């Protein structure tokens, strides 16, 4: 049994020099599992953890073709917020924030959730109006969110150019104090460790190459390490969601787009808030290590390539400097890209499908990291009980065939 983490444990290990037990174990791949989860990102791991922790379903395998968190979960800008535009969205993401707040102690793993406030800048009267709309929906749902003026923006971010003559003047912002950032890798590892402790099998470098369906039911998966029999498969593969769903014959309303991000060299802390500008397609926060983490909107065309582009960094730098001209000499250290499974209405696709036993937790686009905990909790319930939980009822696949899209599209541009 793995030991608990604490300052005392650190001290004990430090003094004795005794080594730590692994956070998760490498276990043999079994011939069958009652539940197979494809995708070892935050969604897959959280689902496995809640299946075990909340429903006692522990004999679960999580399969990932790469390393844990090697998908979007390991490469996202880790911005958390719940100031969505629709009531369904606000309620859903607020539950996720709540789980994030309690995560360190629930998982006995410090995920370093940093509640530092989230600012979405408005550079036009149109976006100011959308901010107000969002703020009002948020407040009506009990979420702390308010439109603030340029002076208040300046107070929160002194580097910001709030002059009225700016090409894209800052007319105001949606301020969401509970928003913040988290150590994304820690969330993945925390869930993995906790799931492993409850008996879940984590299989890295195990790629699913086919899904067996017979008589309209899932019966197993094929992998590069051999077949696994299973009646239940969860597709939690985000950017690759279509490729996996294809294996089960379930077409998705998903297009995969690369989303790029970058970090600068570290500098002393000066930016205490998460700043997002939809008009300028940029968001930025400063981590505890001192580097600025930047993101933008998805690449302009669908692709599975994660190589990244030069124009992304050029556009990013130009936009950041329009907001904060004093950062010109700061150096960009690394850029990378991840894949985003975009849906037509910027809302996820969750729940059962027409193929019995084949579940979806996809369509997470550019915003799914923050949803990891609540999605895991809900999908675990969905799989364990066979009932669709109320909190995800708006997100079913059938909404497309019925033409009932989620209204989140309204605030789409750059969300995060």
């Amino acid at each position, binding site marked *: 049994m793995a030991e608990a*983490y*604490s*300052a005392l*444990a*650190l001290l004990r290990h*430090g003094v004795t020099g005794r*080594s730590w*037990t692994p956070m998760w*174990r490498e276990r043999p791949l079994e011939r069958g599992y009652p539940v197979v989860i494809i995708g070892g990102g935050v969604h897959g791991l959280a689902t496995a953890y809640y299946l075990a922790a909340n429903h006692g379903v522990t004999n679960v395998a999580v399969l990932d073709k790469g*390393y*844990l*968190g*090697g998908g979007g979960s390991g490469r996202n800008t880790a911005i958390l917020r719940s100031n969505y535009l629709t*009531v369904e969205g606000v309620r859903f993401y607020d539950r996720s924030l709540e789980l994030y707040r309690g995560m360190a102690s629930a998982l006995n*793993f*410090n*995920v370093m959730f940093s509640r530092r406030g989230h600012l979405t800048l408005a550079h036009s009267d*149109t976006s100011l*109006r959308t*901010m*107000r*709309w969002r*703020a*009002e929906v948020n*407040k*009506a749902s009990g979420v702390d969110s308010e439109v603030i003026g340029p002076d208040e923006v300046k107070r929160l971010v002194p580097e910001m150019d709030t002059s009225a003559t700016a*090409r894209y*003047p800052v007319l105001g912002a949606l301020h969401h104090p509970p928003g913040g950032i988290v150590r994304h890798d820690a969330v993945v*590892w925390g869930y993995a460790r906790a799931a492993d402790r409850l008996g879940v099998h984590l299989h890295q470098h195990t790629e699913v190459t086919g899904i067996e369906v017979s008589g309209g039911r899932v019966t197993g998966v094929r992998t590069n390490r051999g077949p696994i029999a299973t009646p239940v498969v969860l597709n939690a593969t985000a950017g690759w969601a279509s490729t996996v769903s294809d294996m089960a014959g379930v077409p998705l309303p998903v297009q995969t787009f690369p989303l790029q991000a970058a970090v*600068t*060299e*570290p*500098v*002393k*802390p*000066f930016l205490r808030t998460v700043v997002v500008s939809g008009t300028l397609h940029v968001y930025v926060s400063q981590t*505890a*290590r*001192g580097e600025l983490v930047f993101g933008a909107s998805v690449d302009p065309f669908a692709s599975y*390539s994660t190589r*990244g*582009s*030069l124009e992304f*960094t*050029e556009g990013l730098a*130009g936009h950041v400097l329009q907001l904060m001209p*004093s950062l*010109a*000499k*700061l*150096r960009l*250290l690394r*850029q*990378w890209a991840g894949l985003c499974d975009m849906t037509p209405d910027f809302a996820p696709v969750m729940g059962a499908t027409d193929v019995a036993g084949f579940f979806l937790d996809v369509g997470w686009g550019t915003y799914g990291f923050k949803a990891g905990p609540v999605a895991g909790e809900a999908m675990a319930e969905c799989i364990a009980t066979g009932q669709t939980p109320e909190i995800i009822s708006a997100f079913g696949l059938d909404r497309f065939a019925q*033409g009932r*899209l989620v*209204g989140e*599209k*309204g605030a*789409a541009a750059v969300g995060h």
Partner: protein
Amino acid sequence: MSMRLGPRVGEVIDRDEPLSFTWNGRTYPGYAGDTIASALAACGVRVFSRSFKYHRPRGLLTASHLDPGCMVQVDDEPNVRGAHRRVRPGMDVRSQDTWPTLSFDVKAANELARRMLPAGFYYKTFMSPGWLWPAYERVLERFAHGGVVGPGKVSALDGNERYDKRHAHPDVLVAGGGPAGMAAAVTAARSGCSVMLVEEELELGGHLRWGDDVDLTALSELRGRVAATPGIEVLTDAVVLGRYDGNEISVLQRGLPHVAERLVKARARTLVAAPGLIERPYVFAGNDVPGVMLSTAVRRLVNLHAVKPGDRAVVLTANADGDATALDLERAGVEVTRVDARRGGDVTRALGRGRVRAVELGDGRRVECDLLVTATGWTSAVSLLTMAGDQPRYDDTAARFRPDASRLPSDVMATGGVVGDGSCAQLVAHGEATGREAARRSAQSSVTASAAPPPLPVEPHPALFRGRTHGMVDFSEDVSSKDLFTAVEEGFRCPELAKRYTTATMGPAQGKLESVNVVAIIAEATGAAIAETGTTTWRPPYAPVSLGALAGRLREPTRLSPLASWHHSHGAAPLVAGAWIRPDHYGDPVAEAASVRDGVGIIDVTPIGKIDLRGPDVSRLLNLVYVNKWSKLEVGRVRYGVMCGEDGVVIDDGVTGRLAEDRYLMSTTSSGAVTVWEWLESWLQTERPQWRVHATPVTTSYASINVAGPRSRDLLARVVDDVDVAPEAFPYMHVRTGRLAGVPGCVVWRIGFTGELSFELHVPAGYGLHVWERLLEAGRDLGVRPFGVEAQRILRLEKGHLIVGQDTDATTKAYGAALDGLVKLDKDDFVGRPELSWGGQPGDGQRLVGLRMSPDSLVPAEGSQLLDHRGLICGRVTSSRLSPALGRAVCLAQVEAALAEPGRQVTVRLVDGGTARAAVTEQLAQVDPEGVRLRA
């Protein structure tokens, strides 16, 4: 204590040009040609920084761009590579992240708790009590390791601080100006190619520069050939940052006269990577104590900068470069103890803190010294190649990863030390062969790889990564080999995971120095072979690059109406609307609106999209893209139309007029101008290519002026030359063309967005100002005044005219926008028809309605939410203003269809949390719902 040596043959300092600068407030001397680091080292400075976590004192390690120990703040610039940046007179150089001083740093206390602070310790603690975490967080933040930016510290972009970019299209781009790169460039250019030769350092030459006499002779010969060959553009102090799809290569050029830095974006037909080798550090206890240096660092200091790095040296050598270093040191008067790793010699520990005092050898000996030099092997600089798809393979003989050129695309080649070993002559010959092949590939229209140059030999090298003790692996991140062992133990066995857990290779050097050691140590800890362990992913940029350089000159496309300067000089408040800057108002939007209701006003509506449509099939196109009918539109008439997407969602609206049998002018919303045109083209080019229609955007061929108000006809009558504006001659929803104020070729629409009698004039743009001024002049006695976008918004809202994108959103279908009457389902096909025919049922979705507030003067913010009797959100206010005409609020709202009946009551949730009541109105229009005024 001066460590400056007498003149060296290959030195790059100019002894005739002494200078002085400050380091942590004290003045130091140096010479032109010195780097910050060499000037300080010549003055005996040994400690340049403190390490990230434990704040251990750090000195020079590579004495190059990559040196993790010499990151400094120069004036307002953080994280300057002190061992690369040339020192300049008066420079203010400071150490970073030390408090209170570099020599006495409080955070060095961390070192004491080192055993309690293993890699990733923070994941294991600070969890409870949860409320204390923000306080812990502030403490952790203090350890952010870097310089300072922020207001007052970094200057704005001006003068020679500006940045710039340019494109380039060399046939061959050579990355790296060492012997191989120079040879490749010369041969490619001689084959007729345009060549760009890029070298990160300040001069061409690579490793030859600090070599012996033979090297220096080869160097000057090669430099001579480069200079004598036409067609080579040489960029020094310029670094290749990345290789992207399409062989797009980014280069950062520094040290230019006109700009601080310039980003060169090169589309090379062929990239030749000749980046050479990087010497790797050796891992053992104390390997980060100031005075422990790589052999290349020593040779740079001694031979290029004439700096004596110490007085008594131990040289651990495993190769010829180590041997040569020992000789260089001896020649410089340093007492040298050689330890030959090829014969089993080893170093187990460097002792000392601020500087090396002694070294413990593998055989147990202890040697007093102040300099420990290691020459234990190389790393191939593969990062550019991996960006192009290469996957380097570990070579047991060479004890390093080498490129596996078979995975490279045909437009990327590699030469020189990065691919193999050999004498200088062999490397040059390989460079030449590569240059020749690159030229051949560049000349082809579609590049095919053919004969690659014969491979270079690979010389055996002992596999030296970590010695018998644990030491620093990633110097900039303060990650030790012990940390990596711990990570593996905890389950982080895959290098990508171990990297993220320990942060090894995540610092400013990005693993260029240390990634092989990281992999070797992970392999050691997991018991796997290095080859199967594999490296982590390389990513651009190769070297960190300023945001300023990436941004270049900050310019955003801006669109201006022909009247822009008039608006500006008449006090218009600017409104940024996408690329357009429009007048929001001229001081008093309410009075502006009133003048339209009572008399006449004029507004510049140039950004309204205008598309010229010609051809026999235009009416079929209109029938297809608009939801209403167009077949019967007569010449001389205009009609309002709404466009939907294939999903039935409203995407644009506007009026279109028929000017002649086969000629129409379509107008669109300002923001929709471009998208609507592309939308029309997509139908014409992909789904209906047989239709004969030409669609040409002409938005800014015209200045568009709306003349609105009960007196607008009187005003217009005074400026028209040949258009009869009498009500019978020019009825509502008609169009005329003619001459206005002496200007031929004008189009006039009689329409009424403001709800008043109004005419929209489309005037050839160059006459816009003339017509505008004539209107103001001619209408002076009518009280004409210009009005801005805000007044127009008030007016249209009083009239209940919707704005697509404000009163509708990305889910609003035509009937949701209260446009049911317009949708003609009896047309056989129009875009959106299927959805509109299935989805218009009552009770479905939201509807656009008018709202009457109580109290009626209460103006709810746009975006305010509507609540139903259960207190649940049932809609929102989309538009709202105080109506000057009515003296009360006028609002449009989207509300659930079931509530969208006149008289239904809803609750408006106000911004301050309070509520008010509102009733759904009979119609959207609150002023003149019958439309008498606009038909006057």
